[in-house]
């Protein structure tokens, strides 16, 4: 029997899924790796540690669930988190740690680019909002702050390029991840000259940009031996985690959007055309030759609720965060919608869409002597979801969204799913797959094998659970609270800046 392997190189962990050809899960394994913060604005990871972790997890999964059951690996398909940067020298050795999407060291460089005459052309051509997350900005930071490393850099890679190079020897980057670097022309699918010039690099210093269904060749012999896979196993470049999550969520129609909330979060739509936002708040990333995934990312996902639980929850068992969060959610559900006039702005890590303000901070507003922990817990959850709604509203300027599909560990908590339906006043369906990212990888691979005509047909095959219907009464409450939330966010911008400058 044949099987398909999906490797997700996520922000905190690598997740490996084995699927049979019908999309059923044969096995799953994960291994996590840490993020280091040598300075407050820095977020780095160790590329070798990620590579070794991935090899170990993959090898164990193959031994335990694939080889032992006589499955033959037909394809290995990759996905990775966006915006990572790794400078590599001529001999292929990394000159830096991996700089992740959450890294804010390029604040100043982002500010300079934002106000430069080239910025409009670069944003429109590349689809990537101008922000420290963008590899373009990170390269400019290296050029300005670490000219020694910048000079020595032979290739500016992303995590996926590095991993695939280790395994196959080829240096490639799929269009989907490449379009999140701020350096790819999303119309021509080639490296954008204006962005290259601004970064001060040449196209030869970047990986070869390839379609998501590109095969970068076979596994090097030594890995074939150590992993026990045959010479016929093919590698697929795959896409970014965000694009696969959208594909795997089955939201192909124009009136659908998908909300993903893990640690961070995003609201996304798929379409044939690029969404032009005059305020440059939206991203447009390439899915395949004719489709784009557009939307807005947020820093304020499940990680914000986790913070709340760690600080204020009860730990019945040492380090048992899951039970602690379950308890708090039960507690929160005991408070009224609106948490009796307690509001929370969830910007603990600054915010990306829609305000794109790295200096924004978290705020509890409206605290009263009668408020208890359950109100605070509820306010935190509502705050995270109002923020999702603010991104959704921005997308609704371009699309008439009538249905939502949600995925990710935080969004799929039943309490949150109902709240999303109520706040958006839209029906919400939940993906039945453990990981919509890996489901996306499966769908792409299955299309390659010829099981689907194209990825559109593949995406439409995704089955969604029964929808969660909005409660109109609650929606009326949330709508009024949201307008205060939106006002507050706008009004506090100057104070966030003042606080940052203290």
């Amino acid at each position, binding site marked *: 029997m044949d099987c398909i392997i999906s490797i997700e190189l996520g922000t905190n962990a690598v997740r490996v899924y084995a699927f049979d050809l019908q999309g059923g899960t044969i096995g799953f394994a994960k291994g*996590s790796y840490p993020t280091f913060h040598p300075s407050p604005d820095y977020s780095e990871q160790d590329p070798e540690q990620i590579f070794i*972790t991935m090899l170990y997890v993959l090898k164990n999964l193959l031994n335990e669930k694939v080889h032992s059951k006589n499955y033959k690996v037909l394809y290995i398909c990759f996905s990775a988190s966006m915006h990572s940067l790794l400078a590599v020298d001529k*001999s*292929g050795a990394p000159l830096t740690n991996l700089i992740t999407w959450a890294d804010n060291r390029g604040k100043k460089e982002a500010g300079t680019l934002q106000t430069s005459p080239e910025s409009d052309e670069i944003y429109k051509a590349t689809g990537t909002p101008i922000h420290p997350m963008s590899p373009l900005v990170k390269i400019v930071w290296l050029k300005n702050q670490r000219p020694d490393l910048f000079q020595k850099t032979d290739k500016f890679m992303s995590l996926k390029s590095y991993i695939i190079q280790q395994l196959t020897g080829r240096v490639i980057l799929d269009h989907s991840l490449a379009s999140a670097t701020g350096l790819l022309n999303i119309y021509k699918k080639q490296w954008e000259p204006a962005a290259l010039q601004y970064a001060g690099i040449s196209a030869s210093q970047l990986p070869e940009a390839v379609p998501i269904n590109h095969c970068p060749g076979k596994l090097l012999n030594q*890995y074939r031996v150590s992993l026990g896979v045959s010479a016929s196993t093919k590698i697929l470049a795959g896409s970014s985690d965000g694009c696969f999550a959208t594909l795997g969520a089955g939201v192909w129609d124009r009136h659908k959007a998908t909300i993903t909330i893990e640690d961070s979060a995003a609201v996304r739509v798929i379409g044939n055309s690029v969404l032009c936002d005059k305020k440059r708040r939206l991203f447009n990333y390439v899915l395949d030759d004719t489709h784009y995934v557009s939307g807005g990312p947020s820093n304020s996902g499940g990680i914000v609720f986790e913070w709340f639980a760690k600080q204020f929850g009860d730990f019945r068992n040492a380090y048992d965060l899951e039970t602690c969060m379950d308890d708090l959610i039960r507690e929160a559900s005991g408070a009224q919608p609106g948490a009796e006039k307690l509001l929370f702005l969830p910007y603990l890590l600054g915010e990306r869409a829609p305000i794109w303000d790295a200096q924004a901070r978290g705020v509890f507003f409206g605290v009263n002597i009668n408020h208890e922990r359950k109100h605070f817990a509820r306010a935190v959850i509502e705050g995270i979801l109002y923020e999702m709604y603010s991104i959704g509203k921005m997308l609704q300027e371009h699309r008439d969204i009538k249905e939502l599909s949600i995925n990710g560990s935080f969004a799929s908590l039943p309490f949150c799913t109902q709240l999303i339906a109520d706040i958006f006043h839209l029906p919400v369906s939940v993906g039945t797959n453990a990981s919509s990212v890996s489901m996306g990888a499966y769908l792409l691979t299955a299309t390659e094998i010829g099981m689907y005509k194209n990825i559109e047909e593949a995406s439409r095959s995704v089955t969604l659970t029964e929808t969660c219907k909005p409660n109109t009464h609650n929606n009326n409450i949330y709508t009024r609270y949201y307008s205060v939330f939106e006002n507050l966010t706008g009004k506090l911008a100057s104070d966030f800046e003042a606080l940052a400058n203290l």
Partner: protein
Amino acid sequence: MNLFELQQGSSRELQMFPHIVSTGCKKNQAIQLESFRESMSEFIRIYYIIDGKHEWRIDDENFHLYPGDTVLILPGRKLSSEKGFLEIGTLAWIHFKIEVLEHNKFIPGKWSSLSESECGTIGNILLLNRPLVPSKTCDAGRVLASLQNELLNQEIAFYTRVNQLLDEFLATLSRQLAKEGNPGRDFSKIFLQLEQKLRDNLARQWSVEEMAATVGMGTTLFNVRVKSYTGFSPINYLINLRIAESIKLLRKPDLNLTDIALDTGFCSSQHFSTTFKKLTGHTPREFRKKNTGDS
């Protein structure tokens, strides 16, 4: 507590305990200027604050000490007072000999019944934790008081009791140090601290007990948490860390393979080679050849 002072060499009570350099309890009722000069010693010095507020300096770090706090000063570290004198108050102390070896190992001596691996764990905590000032260590204060009573009263089997209490003193302080700042909430933070310690001391032969103790957890809970948090057993996590580090070192052509093996914590180049090959499919030598064009 009784006020007293015992010194090795002059106090008969310490004759049977050559490892104890001095111990006592002192009440300082008046400030004497210049009475607290900077000092350094070859033995471990432990002070327990009973009364008063004290401002001390260990190496280059200042500490404000309150009743119930303990101060551990390792061999070779400097102790002084910010103001140059001993403040008004009461404190108990004990100075005793231990031998510090490479890789944070220490040997207390024949008197101790701590096992080799327990010494490894305690040594690790004492030598890796900064600062060594566990606060509110009333348990440690009680153990020290019992130890001193045994020394002064010399009742039946006091030789065994003194040494047992000294072991208990070390164990109590190590537990307290490891648990400090670790209220059992944020495992991700604790794990990151451990990760940093492992990376900084990769050559050390870590056992799971030592890793667990370093973050103030029991081994059973530690195993469960690490597995659910990382997907790996603690030892496998460590092995992956070792291989990842060795890859970086293998890219530097001037390091020899045996040194790389030992620096990354493999007990031999043979062991390194087998473990490396199992995961990556090639031996360290082959990896280096492919990645540096060097043989």
